[in-house]
């Protein structure tokens, strides 16, 4: 029973893409899942950018691409995705499993 409750709570958290931002406070550091949902996932896996999860892309290359915006991708500045957020995001993308709901060319 306790296990079931924990699971439901976990799902609810995963479903809420952004930790609640309080009035008058700047956005707090986001998890890789939150950054992916709020930024990357609008193009990658949505037929705009290529699928990047589940491909073992090297974290270092991900960091470079985010900051430089290779080809048709825009660049994302440290003010948009903080250095700490990017480090965690790149590591997460490298090891993340493919999401069967995603598609792209």
């Amino acid at each position, binding site marked *: 029973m306790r296990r079931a409750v924990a699971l439901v709570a976990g799902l609810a958290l995963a479903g*809420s*893409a*952004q930790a*609640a*931002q309080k*009035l*008058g*406070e*700047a*956005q707090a550091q986001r998890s890789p899942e939150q950054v992916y949902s*709020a*930024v990357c996932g*609008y*193009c990658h896996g*949505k*037929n*705009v*950018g*290529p699928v*990047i999860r589940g*491909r073992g*892309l*090297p974290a*270092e*290359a991900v960091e*470079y*691409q985010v*900051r*430089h*915006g*290779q*080809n*048709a*991708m*825009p*660049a*994302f*500045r*440290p*003010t*948009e995705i903080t250095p700490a957020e990017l480090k965690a995001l790149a590591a997460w993308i490298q090891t993340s499993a493919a999401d069967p709901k995603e598609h792209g*060319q």
Partner: protein
Amino acid sequence: MTANMDRRSLLGAGVASAAAAGLGTGAKAKAVLAPGVRKADFKGAVAAMRKVVGDEWVFADPDAVAPWKKSYTPDPYGKHIPVGAVCPETAEQVQAIVKIANQFRQPIWPVSTGKNMGYGQTTTAMPGQMILDLKRMNRIISVDPELCTALVEPGVTYRQLKDYLVENNLPLWIDVPTVGPIASPVGNTLDRGVGYTPYGEHFMVQCGMEVVLADGEILRTGMGSTKNPSAWQAFKWGYGPYLDGLFTQSNFGVVTKMGMWLMPAPPVYKPFVIRHRKMEDVARIVEAMRPLRIANIVPNVVLMMGGAYQLAMFKRRGEVWDGAGPITDEAVSKAATANNLGMWNTYIALYGTEGMIAESEKIIRAAFAAIDGEVLTEAEMKDNPWFHHHATLMQGGLNLDEIGLARWRGNGGGLAWFAPVAPAKGSETQGQVALAKQILGKHGFDYTAAFAIGSRELHHIIALLYDKSDPAEEKRADDCYRELVTGFGERGWASYRTGVHAMDLVAEQFGTVNRAFNAKLKDALDPNHILAPGKSGIA
């Protein structure tokens, strides 16, 4: 080599070496200092700014500035590259930075979230500027659920605001431009951008600003400068000359807070697409739509999406056209039909109660049946990705589907919006389509375009799509854009907005008296010309 490298191979084993070479990025672009600014001035400004925001939030060496150099707009001569970036987190820090900029005569170019894709992103109209990057200032100051208003800082994205409303169960909608998730309500409104709900004309639903002036003073517009202001977000005009317009598409101050009105979520929302099969139908569509918009029977900003623009969102050019020269109407029509699209796809929506919507729908169906339009809803379009995209936009929903445009033509990510304005009359359409096709065709580019009706005006929204990784094509795109501006300008169709690459040329279309007036304001408000010189053609 660069032009032919495909996206998958870039993402595969070769990614690290491609990255190291800076392929397809702005990393190699060389910045120069602004006229009259010596190296010692720049160094002095950088050192002083570091004391204000901390070492880690000033970027001045060429590699560190790379993320601010990326842009979709053409810059074949390297005139739009920033020389640095400074990233404050408070209005007080902005005041201090403005004073430093004056002291060292170092120009600064404010950006909110820097995601006005196809208008310049975080590049500048004139060289040698430091980007004043306001993204860290991303506080939602207040939301009033009774008045349906919000007060936000420039770095707040539409996504942040939407998340706040959803998480707090506030039944309020936002209105987004096509790059909503990563763009900013402040930045978009200040550039007089639009969205696609009934609140689509963003400057109309803006209310009150806080502005850091070039002398470091803070101005609050409208009711915001009264004692204990109570109506800052409720009443736009304040007393005396209305000032807010001076801070849109201009360089007279740095907006650090902006009030905005939010639409109460309607009980029922119903999106429609009206499909027409022939290119020349656009004149009839505009004639049918104008009275419906003016009478507000169609309440939202209307998009009439051309077939080629729609295809370019989700398809690669090679999938639908392999002939020489620009894609033909026949090829567009064939691919559009195969994807359940027309040559013109007009997206509108109704908001209200079932009864209100049913009444309006009757009128709209009759108006478009008379001009052979197929009026379609979710029942017929089902999961059509284009319908889904526009149905999302027209309820202030978030997606980035239109970024797909940037890789229609090769991988290089070239996009420049050309957006001339005309009156909303059918007679204004055919000549524009012919002229656009002629100029684009001369330079080898496709006519990927839409029309939009806000109220009484017709925006022609032309996506100039090119491969930026090919220097010759980037140069052609730049030439083409300039010819579009002057060619349309001669016919009385001038732009409502443009990218950093063409601000001066577009300003020329509005005449010498207009330019001289703006120049006088600039001299009075910013005598050292340290705020975004070149913005909207104001040096």
